[in-house]
């Protein structure tokens, strides 16, 4: 049983620069911020290291931070430029009964995060969903295609805050 502070110390010792910061202000649950392209190594360590044993990935969730600059495009639609998209990882150890939350933030224009699908197969569909909804690309994912939206959806990524409904999908009017 370890609390997030201890886990943060362990990770900081091991990975140094990769582990960015520990946020632990209430009422927010504390989470550890990690560099996006190194998350898979951190996760593998968390899973296999004796005394950490994070065998289970509870949840993986994309989120649009919407912290960029809001500008108007030519059609007068508000779009967000710059800023970040984030992914939250909620890990849990079934034997040791402790939890930790990791967060990676990646560039909005070219969102790339290392995939943890190889580490926890549970991440497979979660990552596909995050890709589907936010357009976050998970590198090394074996089958990164849309999952809830149609496979050939071209209207963008719906859960981004500046998402606009497309007018037509294959000749069908979308807002019916």
């Amino acid at each position, binding site marked *: 049983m370890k609390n997030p502070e201890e886990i943060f110390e362990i990770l900081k010792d091991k990975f140094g620069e990769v582990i960015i910061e520990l946020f632990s202000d209430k*009422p927010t*649950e504390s989470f550890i911020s990690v560099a996006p392209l190194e998350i898979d190594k951190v996760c593998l360590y968390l899973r296999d290291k004796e005394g950490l044993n994070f065998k289970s990935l*509870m*949840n993986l*969730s*994309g989120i649009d931070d919407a912290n960029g600059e809001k500008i108007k495009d030519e059609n007068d639609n508000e779009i967000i430029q710059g800023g970040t998209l984030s992914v939250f990882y909620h890990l849990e150890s079934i034997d040791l009964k402790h939890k930790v939350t990791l967060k990676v933030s990646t560039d909005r224009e070219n969102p790339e995060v290392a995939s943890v699908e190889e580490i*926890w197969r549970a991440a497979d569909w979660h990552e596909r969903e995050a890709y589907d909804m936010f357009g976050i690309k998970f590198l090394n994912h074996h089958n990164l295609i849309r999952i809830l939206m149609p496979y050939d959806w071209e209207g963008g990524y719906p859960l981004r805050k500046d998402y606009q409904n497309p007018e037509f999908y294959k000749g069908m009017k979308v807002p019916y």
Partner: protein
Amino acid sequence: MALKTEEMVLNMGPQHPSTHGVLRLELVIEGEIIKSVTPHIGYLHRCFEKHCEVMTYPQIIPYTDRMDYLASMCNEFGYVIAVERLMGIEVPERVEYIRVIMAELQRIASHLVAIGTYGADIGAFTPFLFCFRDREKILNLFEITCGARLLYNYIWIGGLMHDLHPDFIRLTKEFIKEFRPNLKELNDLLTFNQIFIDRTANVGILPAETAINYGITGPNLRASGVNWDLRINDPYSIYDRFDFKIPVGKGENGTVGDCWNRYYMRILEMEESLKIVEQAINQIPDGDVSSAIPKRVKPPAGQIYSRVENPRGELGYFIVSDGSVNPTRIKVRAPSFVNMVVFGELCKGHMVADVVAILGSIDIVLGEIDR
């Protein structure tokens, strides 16, 4: 001499009697043997998470009902707990008891559907109707309490919509009395039927290590022999006050983690749920159920991941709030969604008939997978 065979692609669904909704399975089969299975989901996508961004917190509750529509009470329960934790609301004792009673009754109702439809998948139609007959009684209990039979919107942030109906306790006691023999009858008719055991035992074996790695939760994980139940291991609400056991798969009729075990877990869990309901209705205190309902639900900025044990597994709500009346992001970790990932793996090498058996034993609800 080996016969030359060709693979055939068989599209199972989106409309098929036993895909439990609009799920499409792309089976590559060789004769009757499955080479690979690719599930295609999204036919029931209703943009729950996008809707949430423009809705106030209480308005989201009816939407959570519609995710796992067989376990609406549990969905509400999970969501409400998440928001209450974010806001730091303490709810009255009576509310907690009523919530637990409702959630456990709902668990029984949900498992009854799972078991009944599983019987129908295997080919026995009569248990299906027996299960629905009993479920109907639970729905009647819900109906007198909140007026709805399926999508309740009963558990509110900080309280409940109504107090219990005056008849509720009496009717629940009657139900429990009637239900125990019915459960035994169900066991006679289906659970221990040798044909049923032959169909389900040693089929779709899910070892514990794989199950954890795939994030499987709920009865499916316990059937693999892992003693893990959030009601005991990470207690929420007042579950630590009740005396009940967690059934774990033992492989009575085959291997640990096969379809029969997954099915049998649900039977055993119903018995445990009955015990909880019995204890809860005997201990329930008096009180006001709406005293803690906040006038205006406006959680502070922050994020929380809160989870409850749904009939199908761990239902998690990841709520990010920016301090306004609308959540920034709600991600639902739907148990069926995660449990479904392993499905393709389980089916390999089995027969077409087993696909149905395995799918039924995982017990998915498409409303929750597609959200």
